[in-house]
């Protein structure tokens, strides 16, 4: 670039890369390029750290709190944060910090479990049935059409009313509503891979359909699937919370992030007179937002890492 022009921030960044390249610093490491880009993405690193920290806190909850999340202490109702209860207590005198940690377990299990379950079902079907095609494939496409034609929230509410409220049921419901998306995504990827020559060659060698689908097609679809799993984990955690507002989530007495926050909404209407007791819902809301944010950072980082046009 000519000296007459002023250097922009991008120019300075490029200068740095050039200097590093010329001094031979780059390229000596043989690490995976995707991994390298992921670690150079600040948001993704923050995401991973936050994710690990929150998971540690929640699953190692007994190490970080001495209280039982369900234990009432009617003498200490609605007490403000203090040394005794670092996040205060709720209307029944339960320790909020302990409830956030134990509740996080349920919320994370619901979110992650549902996303993994939906992915397992959708990807398996998408790979095998998508590859085989035929009657089964057109049937599944019709079924997923039906699932996607009923608005998701409505579908969830109806199924919850049908099978009842519990954590396990909620996971099953989320898997039921989540698989069509995964199925369609995998299927469309498989359909385009199917046309490629390596698949034709495998078939010509007489490799079995199952083996082609799961050994050769699966690795090629894994990238978008992993991104989708992270993003749907975030989505399911948010949905769990929304269902709590409507009174259709995990039963109220079990601590989950959604249930803790929804003390303030009392199943729909905001309890304006409780707004002064901010500690009963706000810390948990922040925890939930941070966790969802961390997952989104990771998912976004993963997506960018596989995109070569991005400066990492």
């Amino acid at each position: 670039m000519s000296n007459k022009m002023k250097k922009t921030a991008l120019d300075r960044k490029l200068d740095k890369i050039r200097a590093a390249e010329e001094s031979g610093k780059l390229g000596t490491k043989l690490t995976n390029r995707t991994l390298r880009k992921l670690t150079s993405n600040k948001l993704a690193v923050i995401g991973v750290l936050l994710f690990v920290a929150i998971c540690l806190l929640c699953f190692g909850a007994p190490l970080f709190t001495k209280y039982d999340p369900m234990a009432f202490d009617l003498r200490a109702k609605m007490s403000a944060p203090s040394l005794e209860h670092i996040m205060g207590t709720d209307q029944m005198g339960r320790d909020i910090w302990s409830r956030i940690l134990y509740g996080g377990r349920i919320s994370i299990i619901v979110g992650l479990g549902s996303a993994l379950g939906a992915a397992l079902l959708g990807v398996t079907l998408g790979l095998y049935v998508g590859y085989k095609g035929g009657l089964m494939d057109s049937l599944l496409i019709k079924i997923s059409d039906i699932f996607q034609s009923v608005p998701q929230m409505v579908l969830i509410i109806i199924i919850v009313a049908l099978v009842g409220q519990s954590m396990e049921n909620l996971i099953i419901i989320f898997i039921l509503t989540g698989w069509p998306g995964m199925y369609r995504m995998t299927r469309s990827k498989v359909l385009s891979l199917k046309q490629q020559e390596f698949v034709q060659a495998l078939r010509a060698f007489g490799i079995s359909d199952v083996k082609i689908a799961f050994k050769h097609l699966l690795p090629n679809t894994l990238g978008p699937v992993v991104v989708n799993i992270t993003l749907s984990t975030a989505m399911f955690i948010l949905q769990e919370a929304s269902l709590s507002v409507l009174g259709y989530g995990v039963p109220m007495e079990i601590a989950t992030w959604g249930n803790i926050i929804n003390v303030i909404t009392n199943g729909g209407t905001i309890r304006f007179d409780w707004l002064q007791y901010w500690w009963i819902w706000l810390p948990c809301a922040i925890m939930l937002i941070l966790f969802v944010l961390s997952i989104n950072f990771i998912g976004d980082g993963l997506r960018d890492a596989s995109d070569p046009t991005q400066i990492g």
Partner: protein
Amino acid sequence: MAEKNNDVVLSVKDLHVYFYTNQRCNKVIRGVSFDIKRGRTLCVVGESGCGKSVTANSILRLLPELSRIEEGSITYYKEDGTEVRLDQLEKNGKQMRKLRGEDIAIIFQDPMTALNPVYTVGKQIEEMLKEHKKGMTKAQYKDAAIEDLADMGIPAPDIRYGEYPHQFSGGMRQRSMIAMGMSCEPKILLADEPTTALDVTISAQIFDLMNNLKKEHNTAIMMITHNMGVVAEMADDVAVMYMGNIVEYGPVEKIFTNPSHPYTQALLRSIPVLGKGKNQQLEPIRGSTPDPFKRPKGCQFCPRCDYACERCQNEMPPEEWVTEGHYVRCFNYKEVTESGK
């Protein structure tokens, strides 16, 4: 270049262009010099990834965002005698934009993607006219666009004018790209592998078209190709590129009869010659193109070269003049030239 010729319309000197993707610095162009002359076709030939297209895009300043012209100059000589340093203009600034299309036009490799799918072909040609020839009426623009299409040998141009690119065949699309490129009668036409995506008969028609343009309008053409057959057919001058350098540059007769760089010789030996019968011996070039991030220290062709010496491993050979207008980057070019005869 040694002499300043009145026919030179564009002169590139010691151009360096680096790409910065994936947190790495890829030195794509490492000191390239050549001239483009009025009424002549310069063919830039080389294997994929050697920097041919990047050179063309640098001239029009159409490089992607994560890349820079680091050193060197690109000078455009206007008809009125003024010189414009293209490398110093603002990338998408007013001056550069005025030159694009009006003075220098480009045709891309893939006519399938180079036309915008949502506008009619006619509208896309008109867009060029409206940008550079202001003050015409609507009907005049339309007539001009139809005439441009007709000039390129497109049948029923008045109907084709209102059709979308996907309704065109590949050859027709490339013709309309050329029609668009030529609509403002540019002084220089850059053609980036214009026929790679087309079949042989269509390619031949496109080449005829371009040769006519050169004769009628005295346009300077820079044609990028990886096909030595195209070079033989089209070129007045040839630049052979390898890994970001021009390794040999000169008039086509000299390059074909008197190749002085081992890479040029190898290229010529690796293509069949029509009429030599089916028993001719074709020699592929041994080895493979090096990784751009693990380049040889000296001459880039050194690991694959039969004439390599110790000096070649450590030093990049300078541009040495064989005869007037013919240079080569090789320490041993005399020996090479001898053996090539």
